[in-house]
């Protein structure tokens, strides 16, 4: 496997996980950018733990789940059912704070970056196992009663509430899951690149994942699987001068999708029809 392809596959997987991390809370209309802050937190923690304390990779992954989940959970106690606007601001503020902390902490390398993260054998396999695992869990969630109540949220907020679901608990669950995914992304990214820079975990990342989510289609989990490889891979085929316009093109695409076809490429209707063709009659809509 060529090196370029290896990196392409790995980073695509990370973007898939991160976009799923945005997909989940958006089921109830919340844009939870805090997961990117979690990515930074767990990424740096894992990197430091492995390099300076010699933690094995498995332990680092576990720590990512724990820390990412805990931070997201505690915050969700306050904003589990907050309006989207509030959630977005909280997310951005966290990102900003974490970035400031990292940049001013020499222990973490500051703006120069953190280097020397140990290599892990079979990282690609581990990464995709996590992708499959997460995808499986998300799929189960989407088909559960809870998941369907969540998707009703977009159509009619009050109807969803009256179906007996506790919106706050649902929001907390989704946000926590999102935080865990974010933490895992951070660790996977750090051990893939073997170094970390604070500039990576900021609004560029937010914009990229948002574009992937909305262009792919935010109503189903499959949208991201299509948009992430395409949006990440296609710019790589171009010479560097054009590639530096990547984020700007993402911005344009994002706006275009929202104005022209807000549901994105992969819509629920598409998924339903595809399932019918592949598996015959489905028992219920997903």
């Amino acid at each position, binding site marked *: 496997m060529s090196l370029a392809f290896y990196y392409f596959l790995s980073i695509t997987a990370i973007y898939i996980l991160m976009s799923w991390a945005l997909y989940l809370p958006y089921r109830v209309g919340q844009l939870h950018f805090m997961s990117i802050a979690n990515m930074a937190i767990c990424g740096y923690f894992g990197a430091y733990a492995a390099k300076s304390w010699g933690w094995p990779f498995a332990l680092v992954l576990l720590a990512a789940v724990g820390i990412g989940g805990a931070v997201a959970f505690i915050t969700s106690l306050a904003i589990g059912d*907050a309006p989207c*606007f*509030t959630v*977005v601001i909280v997310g951005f*503020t966290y990102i*900003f*704070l974490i970035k400031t902390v990292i940049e001013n902490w020499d222990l973490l390398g500051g703006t120069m970056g953190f280097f020397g993260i140990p290599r892990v054998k079979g990282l690609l396999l581990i990464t995709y196992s996590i992708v499959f695992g997460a995808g499986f869990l998300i799929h189960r969630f989407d088909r559960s009663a809870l998941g369907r109540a969540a998707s009703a949220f977009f159509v009619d907020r009050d109807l969803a509430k009256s179906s007996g679901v506790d919106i706050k608990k649902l929001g907390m669950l989704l946000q926590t899951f999102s935080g865990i995914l974010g933490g895992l992304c951070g660790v996977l990214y750090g051990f893939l690149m073997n170094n970390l820079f604070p500039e990576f975990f900021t609004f560029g990342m*937010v914009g990229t994942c948002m574009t992937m989510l909305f262009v792919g289609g935010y109503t189903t989990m499959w949208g991201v699987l299509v948009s992430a490889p395409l949006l990440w891979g296609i710019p790589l085929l171009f010479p560097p001068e054009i590639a530096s316009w990547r984020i700007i093109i993402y911005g344009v695409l994002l*706006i275009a999708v929202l104005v022209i076809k807000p549901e994105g490429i992969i819509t629920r209707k598409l998924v339903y029809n595809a399932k019918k063709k592949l598996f015959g009659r489905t028992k219920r809509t997903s």
Partner: protein
Amino acid sequence: MEVFVAQVINGLALGSIYVLLVTGFNLLLLVALIIHFSFPQVVVFSMYISWIVLKATGNNMLLGFLAGVGSSVLICVATAPLFQRATRKRRGVDINTTMVISLGIGMIITELLSHEFNEGFPIAFPENVAGRKALVQFGLISISEGQVYALAAGGVAVLAFFLILYRTRMGRAFRAIAEDPQNARLTGIPVLKTGILSYALTGLLGGITALLLSILLGSASAGLGESVALKVLAVSIIAGLGNLKGGLIIGILLGVLEALTQGYLSGSWSNAVVFGVMLIVILIKPKGVFGGRL
């Protein structure tokens, strides 16, 4: 003590800029019915435009100012149809869509500023423009021209804005739409056209704010838009979305808080402290201290 007073004055000037930005944001929220996350970034972009014009015309202040205002109004009005298309198509989670669209706009502006303008380096405004000359001095306390302008212009702009809102036909239409868009439509107010007017007015506010920021800060960078945007948005949450008077109070308070922490802590940590405080306030009261819509 002198540091304290000096910083309070600084804070008032800074606060009046936040007030202008929050007011523009609220105007778009109440009348155009959108959430424009990146309004402050449009303002910073206008600062860059006026800087370019200043360089090209040898520091002609009038042209620079007009360029800044012009670009702000142009961008706001040009992006209006994007927002309107999004709010018209679907029901329900409309306002979230406008939020994401504005985030997209912000993304584009920030990337442009970090790569294409001045090779991504921060820009600095020439001395005489920046008005850093001290006007008055009591010991450590010096009030610069810039601060006087910022405070005065900020005050005038806010006053003029409220006058427009409460004493003119257009302002009446704005308030009607803000209270009940459907009812306003019934009354025969062209809601869509009036919405576009509000974009223009916000653009004007933005242009003035760009001028004041140039005078007060004397420089701008790609990241400035993001950090200012975040603060302005936090102000609007804490004050309550759409709450004009609340925005006035909290904007000034934030400016003073920020200036005071800057006086006693070093640069980026003071920012962190300010954000930390805002975060805690938001977490305690996610729906706003004074309450508002949403």
